[in-house]
């Protein structure tokens, strides 16, 4: 197990290294780095000063070295707009995004797995057909448009839930989140549901496909032949087998939830890092863009690693191989 984690960690570091090269190349080689990294409103003297400061007059390899060294020290540049370190700005907004993404993931899993398993167990029933039709719709509806519909319906027409911003937060057990207050939850619900909808569809499809495949296996029939109740067959035998692909995908999808939160956060004016990156792209605030990309890369690589480890915990076949 340890050697398995070590190998995978090593691979992750390589991916991280490659991605840092790409981001660096994207920002420093494709565009004009002066354009990219220096406030467009700066005068010539300022520009010359920053060029020296950033080492843009040095060779590319040296520049990359400084980029990496600075990144390791947590320095990914300063925002033009806010005048503060980019990393700090992003980290400030990260809890809001994480809260949104985690809550969405929670919703997608809590609703998606039972619906998908049901649709897989009774593929011909009316309810299942409705579930699947709904999932194609959920899959096809662009996130931003669903957000608009939700706002129109629940906020503008019915006036039930607020449509913008994050509500009151409270801190329990060292975690600050809006799920601990009623106001916070009411603000969280619509954007989280919006973000969850797309993932909900893929969780349903995945759970359904997995169930349909597992249910045909001999070991399910054998479990029934043992006289095990249908409930146990589904909850233990089916569920445990479909959890492997579902957990893998959910883990990987968590990254895409963070990516898609850019859209949801913009629609619902949610003060997270997704909204910050969109605003920064508008404002050409490039240090923030670079910092955001590097953070996202780290998140993705870490997620992939966690998923691989979880996968091996869930599937004894993989785990045993890792040991020997």
């Amino acid at each position, binding site marked *: 197990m340890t050697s398995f984690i070590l190998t995978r960690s090593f691979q992750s570091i390589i991916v991280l290294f490659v991605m840092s090269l790409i981001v660096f190349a*994207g920002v420093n080689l494709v565009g004009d780095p002066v354009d990219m990294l220096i406030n467009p409103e700066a005068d010539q003297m300022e520009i010359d000063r920053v060029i020296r400061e950033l080492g843009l007059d040095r060779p590319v390899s040296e520049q990359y070295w400084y980029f990496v060294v600075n990144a390791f020290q947590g320095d990914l540049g300063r925002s033009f707009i806010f005048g503060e370190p980019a990393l700090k700005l992003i980290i400030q907004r990260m809890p809001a995004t994480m809260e949104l993404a985690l809550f969405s993931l929670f919703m997608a899993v809590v609703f998606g797995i039972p619906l998908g398993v049901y649709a897989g167990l009774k593929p011909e029933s009316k309810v299942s057909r409705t579930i699947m039709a709904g999932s194609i719709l959920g899959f096809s509806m662009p996130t931003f448009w669903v957000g608009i*519909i939700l706002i129109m319906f629940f906020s503008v027409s019915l006036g039930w839930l607020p449509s913008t911003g994050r509500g009151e937060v409270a801190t329990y057990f060292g975690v600050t989140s809006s799920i601990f207050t009623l106001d916070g939850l009411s603000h969280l619900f619509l954007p989280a549901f919006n973000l969850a909808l797309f993932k909900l569809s893929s969780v349903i499809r995945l759970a359904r496909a997995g169930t349909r495949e597992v249910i045909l296996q001999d070991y399910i029939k054998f479990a029934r032949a043992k006289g095990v109740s249908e409930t146990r067959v589904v909850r233990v035998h089916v569920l445990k087998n479909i959890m492997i692909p579902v957990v893998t995908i959910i883990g990987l999808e968590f990254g895409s939830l963070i990516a898609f939160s850019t859209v949801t956060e913009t629609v619902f004016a949610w003060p997270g890092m997704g909204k910050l990156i969109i605003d920064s792209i508008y404002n050409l605030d490039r240090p923030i863009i670079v910092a955001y990309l590097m953070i996202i890369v780290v998140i993705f690589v870490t997620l992939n690693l966690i998923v691989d480890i979880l996968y091996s915990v869930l599937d004894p076949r993989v785990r045993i191989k890792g040991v020997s």
Partner: protein
Amino acid sequence: MNKTLNTSPDNTPPSGLKKFWSDFSESTTAVVALIIFFTILFIALFAPWVSPSDPYDLTSVDIMNSRLPPGSEDFAGNIYLLGTDGAGRDMLSAIIYGLRVSLGVGALSGFVALILGAAVGLSAAYFGGRFETISMRIVDIQLSFPSILMALIILAAFGKGVEKTVIALILVQWAYYARAARASALVEKNKEYVEAAHCLALGHRRIILSHIMPNCMAPLIVVGTLQTAHAISLEATLSFLGLGLPITEPSLGLLIGNGFDYMYSGDFWISIFPGVALLITIVSINLVGDQLRDMFNPRLQK
């Protein structure tokens, strides 16, 4: 359960196209979706003749008619079936012209991505070696990042505009085609007919293009339909965020974005109707793609 099981009374296999259609039409939903899709395509292609007015002809647009609810009539007696937007444009016409832009961008980017991806995927499978390793590694890494993020990165680096949006969509999509093309080409590569082509000393290009590629088309078509729907949705998202197409090329996403500002005052139609048009387009393409995928999936064939 029985190998001699013979389901059709006559043993003549139906011709390719006929068989294709009889398989496809097994799902009524898919047939309806296909009809809807062709209708949308027709409307988009012949927008100038189909739409009630030209929404971008400044002489026919009157700011006095702005934000009229659906079904209103102006002083000149024109009826606005789906209402008007903030500038007094007929929504129905704007949607029809918007469809044209959305479908155009989606189809163009999908087509170029298909060619690019298939070229990389087929060559990777055929030649193997270092080219295969490197190109497929790139594909893997790219596919592990969500498409919206890739598109945002590209647009953040290059800036916005029609050709940049198309380029972003191509760069986002090519990897899906490359992976699908390689996967099926790997299977085809080792079949006897390719060996036979080698024995005839045919050139690499000839073998790839006229022997391997035609047999890899089925999965590519499936990926193509689903990806086109995805590209249309992605373009709409980017345009809604104001990072995709410019105001001069108003796609459905941009129309929805414009309407978003009016929604809080209750003028729902400006945002909702373009969204419905977008949704119908994407759903119909997805349903067709789903049916194609089921048809070509050997595991589901009984």
